């Protein structure tokens, strides 16, 4: 940590926070100071994924080598069929075939539009509204019943109405993604403003801060962690909106493709779609984590 060691006359009182060996958990403390330490979390995670894929592929290999099943003493193990559980390689092959299909580009574009328009629209409306609701209690009192009503309702049930209003094209799915992501963002942003440290408000007031200054220097930065939580929760809701929306009524889209594939017993293609959806979710989560690191440089790190 910073500052120790130099000849500071106030050193006895100027002990910065706590030494690292104190804040580290005992299990972590045993880990050596090896070169790979910084990558430890990533390496362990990668190893786990590799083992998982190997076991999964192993099931496929058993199916190919012993289609009648393996006899282990009194038991016979019959590997699941490709329809039931395709192997990772089969999923990869299905993905390759799908990627060469002319419908692929159309599906990706459609789902991508639905997801990005719906999500960004939600973020750009929910954050300002949440800030207003947190700052002005009258606005909060007025909008609370609506937010509570709609948050308690699974927004997917609005889909029949949204289809009547917006048709079966991209618009109805943008609407369902928007509604899905919006409320988590509004509620968290409002909570962020409501949970401000009163001491900081008092300091700002004492220095004669105006309402706008108080908002800009205390309320806004103070609610950033809450806003980011709302954005993160919104990702899951948005992806659900895309897939379920397309399942109910759509001509194109990754979700639509998955349900058609499922109905025609193409399990490997369903898995390929699942990978795409999960990939989109992970990409969005990583982007947010990057944003979080940018905004939260001041936050003490647990490790």
């Amino acid at each position, binding site marked *: *940590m*910073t*500052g120790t060691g*130099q000849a*500071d*006359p*106030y050193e*006895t*009182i*100027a*002990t*910065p*926070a706590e030494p690292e060996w104190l804040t580290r958990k005992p299990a972590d403390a045993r880990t050596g100071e090896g070169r790979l330490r910084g990558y430890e979390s990533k390496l362990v995670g990668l190893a786990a994924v590799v083992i998982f894929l190997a076991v999964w592929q192993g099931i496929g290999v058993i199916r190919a080598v012993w289609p009648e099943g393996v006899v282990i003493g009194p038991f016979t193990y019959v590997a699941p069929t490709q329809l039931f559980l395709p192997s990772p390689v089969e999923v990869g092959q299905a993905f390759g075939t799908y990627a060469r299909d002319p419908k692929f580009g159309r599906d990706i574009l459609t789902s991508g539009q639905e997801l990005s328009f719906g999500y960004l629209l939600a973020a750009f409306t929910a954050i300002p509204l949440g800030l207003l609701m947190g700052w002005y209690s009258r606005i909060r009192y007025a909008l609370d019943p609506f937010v509570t009503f709609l948050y308690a309702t699974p927004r997917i049930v609005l889909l029949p109405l949204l289809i009547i209003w917006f048709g079966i094209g991209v618009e109805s799915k943008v609407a369902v993604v928007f509604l899905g992501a919006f409320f988590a963002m509004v509620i968290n942003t409002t909570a962020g403003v409501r949970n401000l*440290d009163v*001491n*900081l408000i*008092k*300091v*700002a*007031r*004492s*220095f*004669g*801060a105006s309402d706008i*200054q108080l908002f800009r*220097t*205390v309320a806004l*930065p*103070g609610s*950033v962690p809450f806003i980011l939580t709302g954005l993160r929760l919104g990702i899951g809701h948005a992806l659900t909106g895309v897939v379920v929306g397309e399942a109910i009524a759509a001509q194109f889209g990754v979700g639509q493709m998955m349900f058609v594939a499922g109905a025609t017993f193409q399990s490997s293609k369903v898995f390929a779609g699942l990978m795409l959806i999960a990939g989109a979710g992970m990409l969005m989560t990583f982007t947010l984590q990057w944003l979080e690191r940018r905004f939260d*440089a*001041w*936050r*003490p790190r647990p490790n």
Partner: protein
Amino acid sequence: MIIPLDQRGLRDETVTVKLEARRVGIRYHRQRTGDELVAVDGVDLNVSQGEFVSIVGPSGCGKTTFLNAVDGLIPIASGSLLLNDREITAPGPDRAMVFQQPSLLPWRTVTGNVIYGLEMQRRAGRESRDTAKRLIDLVGLGGFADSWPSELSGGMQQRVNLARALATDPELLLLDEPFASLDAQTRETMQQELTRIWGETRKTAIFITHDIAEAVYLADRVIVFTARPGRVKLDVKIDLPRPRDLRLKREVEFVAYERTIWETIREEVIRSETLRPRAVA
């Protein structure tokens, strides 16, 4: 009231009254019970230019409330409160408060926090960073200008709190039990530091504390408040030479002051306990 200032080498200057409190009364509206609470009732107090005044009193006697009123954060219900002969109605750049909690903006570095007051008063400019650097050095945090508050100890955070108040160059410095949450050793170091910093800036200061030794050690005058509703019960001039060293606390004269004040507060505590049933107090 004119206080001889011959101890401080100000002999040739005329002593001007900076803060004048006349029969100040402050009431609170208690949300939970809905009744009015008289926190402060009839405080008469003058603070002269360049004077360091400590206010002590039993807990809940309204000393912090009084300080908040001087800062302009809460209104007074009766009497008058004048700073440079002008009524105090709102916070202003002529006053700055050092709060009991460090209350630093966690998303700003030490420098960012020190210039915060200047920014709020729309006085921040190119030279603000130099001001900040000078004050960070003054409070003994040189080398921590770019640290985050979460990287600092409690005592260091209170130094930033003090630097932030000094940065606005106020005429009147208000300190609300700034060392109350520090451990005993850090606290004494900070007391010595404050006398050093005050010696360099000579700001008129009002210091609230419940620690009698702290009050005597720092101040030119110690004011003792009565139990709630608070008013001035005792006004003691502290005739001890400056600069002061912590060893002063073991001297006979120091202990005599401490004892007088202690006896007065003790009386008040006993009186308030016999007046009010324990369950409520």
